[in-house]
């Protein structure tokens, strides 16, 4: 694998990774601090040969930042290596990928759990709306139409689309989804699956099982240990790569942390 041309994604600030549409419209800016950490993680996994070809990102509760982290991991990997990467959103309960790219707040299933400041309605999204995976599986759209292309030629995004509530459980366990993901495996080197929170639906277990391994996203200082443990119990049949602590704000001064290493 050779290093990809990250300059395609024009940095806003040195080290920042900005995802753009092929036309150059900004989609999402991932700060350098985030990409640096994710790069360290990916490098470690790759050189230890423990990075599977399909990884699902899962959380115990909604609002933990699974979509953002899935996207950031995929973008970082696609920016760093010459491998075809695709983000597949399987979260039909609170799809947030398109909203995130359009700069809008996600439709959280757990409204009111975390209050957000009221956001003024944004303008039209900088990319044509995707019918999503749901339409693709129904045969109403092609893969090309469903994918959102980015300025990184080796990174594609596949939003979830809309699936009626009663069909979600069936779809999550369907052979159709399984075979579709197998097809995607042929086209992409790495698949990153955005899975709904385990607290919202048990279908998340079935969806996560579509991947080779999973990583758990936990919001630092918010999610209770027992909740995460319960979630891990639910997916104990899956190999867990580890935990991504999200929205970390360590207040302890660095010099103290250096005195008390956590290893």
């Amino acid at each position, binding site marked *: 694998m050779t290093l990809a041309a990250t300059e395609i994604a024009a940095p806003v600030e040195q080290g920042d990774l900005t995802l753009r549409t092929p036309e150059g419209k900004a989609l999402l*800016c991932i*700060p350098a601090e*985030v990409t640096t950490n994710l790069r360290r993680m990916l490098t470690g996994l790759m050189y230890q040969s423990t990075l599977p070809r399909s990884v699902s990102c899962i959380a115990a509760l909604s609002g933990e930042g699974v979509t953002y982290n899935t996207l950031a991991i995929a973008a970082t990997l696609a920016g760093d290596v010459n491998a075809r990467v695709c983000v597949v959103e399987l979260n039909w309960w609170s799809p947030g990928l398109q909203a995130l790219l359009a700069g809008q707040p996600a439709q959280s299933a757990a409204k009111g759990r975390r209050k957000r400041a009221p956001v003024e309605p944004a303008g039209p999204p900088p990319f044509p709306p995707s019918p999503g995976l749901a339409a693709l599986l129904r045969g109403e759209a092609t893969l090309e139409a469903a994918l959102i292309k980015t300025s990184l030629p080796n990174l594609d995004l596949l939003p979830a689309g809309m699936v009626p509530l009663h069909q979600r459980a069936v779809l999550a366990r369907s052979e159709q989804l399984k075979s579709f993901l197998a097809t995607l495996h042929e086209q992409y080197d790495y698949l990153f699956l955005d899975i709904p929170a385990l607290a919202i639906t048990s279908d998340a277990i079935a969806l996560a099982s579509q991947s080779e391994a999973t990583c758990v996203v*936990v919001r630092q200082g918010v999610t209770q240990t027992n909740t995460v443990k319960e979630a*891990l119990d639910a997916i104990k049949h899956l190999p867990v790569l580890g935990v991504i602590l999200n929205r*970390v704000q360590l207040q302890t001064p660095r010099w*103290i942390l250096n005195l*008390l290493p*956590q290893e």
Partner: protein
Amino acid sequence: MVRLVVLRVLENYFRHRWLYLLPIVLMSAVAGAYLYLATPLYLSDGTVYVRKESLLASLNQVRDDGFVWNTAAAVAVTDLQELVRTEAFVRAVIDETDLKAEMADPVRATALIDVYRKQLTVTAIGENLMGFEITFSRPEIAHQLADATIKVYKTWKLNVDQQESTVAQAFFTDLISPLRQELDKARADLDTYLQVNLDPVRGERPLAEQLQIQRYQEVITSVNVRLQSAIEKEESARLAMSQAESDVDQTYLIIDAPKLPTEPETSLRQMAITAVIFVVVGTILSAVAVVGGALLDRSLRMPIDVRHELQLPVLALVADGEKLQKEKNKRRGKQKQAVVPEQPLADLKLEDKPAQ
């Protein structure tokens, strides 16, 4: 495990450091207010030697484990402590001081009585010594209260002793008068009998008369004996009354008379120690809050938490992207404001060039 707890406690503290510093700040403010508002208290004390031992008072106190022997000083201390609970005694003490005028106001009087009760300390020192001390914001009042306390106590003891004598005197005085009347009557009866029954010219009185006269004389003797006894006892009671005052003075001998205090009891050092105690209490409260908060917080805060609680590796610590972006945007905005519009090189004059 220790490292985990220490890290969690530190993180918890730095997360809400101003909140956790609040108890220290508040208690420091209280300490400052105390130093500013505290009034100095003056102490006046004295020692009384209690000579008399009341056997009855010592033996009548019975406990489960048997009899308890109380010393003279202990009995006097108990007496005084019980008296202090009565309003009459306290009023009598305060009336002896310059605070007498203030006792006219019922509210102020109640307050003064409470202050007196709180500030008076009476202790038994050994078997016969009773120590007492009183603190007050004014030195002369402290001195007067200490003086008045022992004075009123002695007066009360005197009254108790005199009361017994007074009762005895009154009893015997009441007894003397009827006895005198009885004696007079007996004598009059004898005289009357003798006048009616004159001595015979020859020979002796008949036996019946002799017996009657003897009976009258026996009555007179008996009443006379009783009268004399009553008079003696009445005199004894009167003597005891006059001796009671000197007895009380001898029984409760003032060894150390209360003195006028010249320096306040609460020194600057003690006040400083009290202020420090406030700050220490604030610090302890803060520490308890920090440790308690850290132990009650069951969220995952640090990589060590993940490794310890979930036995999983931490893949990455992802900072809050939104917050980072906002901070960067703010920084960029400031930088834009700080940028001075560049001057075209062609417009630069010789004097505009920086000195080499």
